[in-house]
């Protein structure tokens, strides 16, 4: 493999790592704040214990998110210096705002973590809200920067030069809203189901059931509501992609022939050589409808684009199928939860808890798959239709070693964090 491939792998791996911690850092504060609120209202010590237990977890995740994010800020330049040289001045605005958001978040977190004794109760609780809101704001801002790579705007590209730069327009690029909405929901789905799953496992094992049931209920509400909204927002995203990146849409669907009333494929194995999809289920007209809201609309196929502008079709297609499949499943799981609000006896059934143990990792898998769709689907461009990834990569050879270095470092870090969480849980169960 070449230098470029390793640089890509490293980018993908480190981003994929960061996003997990970023999502938890974004969403967990909301769970905490709810539990904290219940403590203030009911003075039931279990809620206090839960809040503090989550808080310790968040502190650990937050630190890991912060260091991996710091590494990413360097990496954008270290791996893609040519990209940053030109893109930096254009899409810098979300990052400079994000800096402010991080600060607000860090300051509020300082108050929240260390303010149990010295701050007025209400104000202390409120700093927790600020942590969450600032986290979501920074998430939205980075995603807007990513949106700009998909839908470059706010400049004129003339003879290889970037002129008439307008940072505000770059921030408000055509992709920012759908992507930010979908991403924010995804963070809630993924974290909600993951946290609920962890607590479901404890309930399943019969450990400290009262506390874990309370924890489960807080987390799952967020996850389930977001899981219902997610496909709706995904549909908006798909319509957006159809308009702005038709190649990506075609790759998501492995749709080779330009067609009116194009069918939607479910499943299927992509045969790149013969440019067809085998073993698929076809729903006639559905793709045209999903992409353009019209069963007869024309959907451009991959064959109509130059070969050197195609992304790796199978990866994009499988990742998309995975995301949508899991999205549907999680929506159903959310439904089960809502029904169980009426049918209380379900909570006694082991199958019920087993379901939520199984769904625990699925949100994060869908989220990673979704990013693969977005990022790999944009290839070979780093800035859609403007700059190719291969022209952006660092001239320094030996990215292979850099990649393995990060791989090792983050695997160790990942294992340590998991092990630490397990210890937190055990300590929590012992307190019972």
């Amino acid at each position, binding site marked *: 493999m070449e230098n470029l491939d390793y640089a890509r792998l490293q980018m993908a791996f480190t981003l994929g790592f960061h996003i997990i911690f970023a999502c938890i850092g974004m969403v967990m504060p909301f769970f905490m704040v709810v539990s904290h609120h219940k403590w203030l209202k009911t003075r039931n010590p279990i809620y206090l214990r839960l809040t503090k237990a989550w808080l310790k977890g968040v*502190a650990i995740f937050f630190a890991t998110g*912060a260091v991996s994010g710091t590494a990413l800020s360097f990496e954008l330049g270290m791996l893609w210096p040519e990209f940053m040289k030109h893109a930096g001045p254009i899409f810098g605005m979300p990052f*400079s705002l994000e800096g402010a958001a991080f*600060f607000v978040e860090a300051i509020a977190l300082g108050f929240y973590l260390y303010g149990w004794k010295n701050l007025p109760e209400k104000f202390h609780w409120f700093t927790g809200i600020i942590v969450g809101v600032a986290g979501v704001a920074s998430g939205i801002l980075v995603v807007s920067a990513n949106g700009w790579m998909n839908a470059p705007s706010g400049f004129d590209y003339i003879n290889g030069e970037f002129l008439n730069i307008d940072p505000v327009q770059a921030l408000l690029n055509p992709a920012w809203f759908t992507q930010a909405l979908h991403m924010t929901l995804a963070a809630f789905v993924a974290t909600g189901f993951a946290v609920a799953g962890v607590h479901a496992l404890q309930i399943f094992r019969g450990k400290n059931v009262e506390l874990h049931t309370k924890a489960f209920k807080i987390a799952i509400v967020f996850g389930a509501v977001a899981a219902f909204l997610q496909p709706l927002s995904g549909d908006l995203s798909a319509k957006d992609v159809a308009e702005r990146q038709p190649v990506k849409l075609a790759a998501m669907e492995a749709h080779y022939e330009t067609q009116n009333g194009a069918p939607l494929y479910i499943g299927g194995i992509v045969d790149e050589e013969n440019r067809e999809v085998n073993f698929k289920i076809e729903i006639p007209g559905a793709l045209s409808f999903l992409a353009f809201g019209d069963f007869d609309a024309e959907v451009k196929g991959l064959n109509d684009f130059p070969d050197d502008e195609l992304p790796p079709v199978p990866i994009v297609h499988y990742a998309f199928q995975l995301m949508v499949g899991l999205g549907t499943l999680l929506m159903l799981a959310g439904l089960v939860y809502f029904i169980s609000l009426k049918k209380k006896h379900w909570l006694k059934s082991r199958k019920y808890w087993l379901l939520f143990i199984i769904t625990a990792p699925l949100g994060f898998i869908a989220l990673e798959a979704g990013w693969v769709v977005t990022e790999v689907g944009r290839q070979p461009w780093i800035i859609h239709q403007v700059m190719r990834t291969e022209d952006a990569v660092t001239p320094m050879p030996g990215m292979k070693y850099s990649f393995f270095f990060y791989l090792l*470092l983050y695997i160790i870090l990942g294992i*340590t964090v998991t092990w630490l969480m397990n210890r937190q849980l055990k300590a929590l169960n012992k307190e019972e």
Partner: protein
Amino acid sequence: MLYIVLFFLMFSLLLYVLLGGADFGAGIVELFSSRENRKITRDTIYRVMGPVWEANHIWLIILLVILWVGFPGYFNVMMIYLHIPLVLVLLGITIRGVAFVFRHYDAVLDSSQIWYNRLFRIGSIITPVFLGMSFASLISGKIIITNDYTNYGFYDLFMEPWLHLFGLLIGLFYAALCAFLASNYLIAETEGDARKLYRKKSAMYTVVLVILGFILLVYGYFAGFKFIEDFIHNPVSLISVGISGLLLIPLWRNIKRGNRIWSRYLAGLQVVLVMFAAIMAHFPYIIITAEEELSLLENLAPEATIDNLAIMLLIGGFVILPGLFHLMKSFNMIKILDKSKPKEM
């Protein structure tokens, strides 16, 4: 507008050097302490730095963002040619950052603490050393900007610029500066025996600093580093360093008298002066390559970007600074001074 951006660039550099530096320094002080003293330092660091720990490090990110948005050509050179030392800086930041949190939030107190402590201390020293080396390579005159990969090997382009004695000296100098800052900072935060300890540390690191600085200048001069020559011939730089040296006298008076606030500000001011001297020696040509000197002011982003960045920074500044001061004040530290151990969360 450009001046606002430049101001924030210098301001965040300064705060990172001071606050981040005090943070690294605390780890260094802990590293070079006896066993019992390590424990004291560990607890003090947690109490004092804990609440502002995150905030101290965001200055680095702000600095980076200003560079890449406002000075893209400059950032480009740094990121290509300083790749390796910066990876090592990141390694340091990563291990000390997570170790700091792990050691305070791990639910179980057992032998893994030993590892967290080790990693925290090691990270605390490698980060400033490699930061210093990265800075040194910018001014070393050894960077070769080229696309010619047949005549120049990997070593010439990506190792040579940072891997040399001069770089190492600057790295160690910065690490000593951090430890100096931290010990003065810690003097003000402690009582009794612990205070005596940090007083001793502060004296020790002052000596180390002066010696290292001297070796640095002499070696740099005789090895023909342009930066050092310019430094020595620049009156502003010399005067700043001179004042910084003279300030040692009031610093020591204040420490003796137990004036905590002044001693802290004085130590900070000294470091600011040293940094100012280094930057002024070459401003705005902060990158010295083998052939040319790159000016910060000639590698600007387009005007619209600079204006936008300036406005964002001003808005950010107004939002953040009051909050930050409030945070520092709320947990201040000097007032609270409860000698009891921090309550377990």
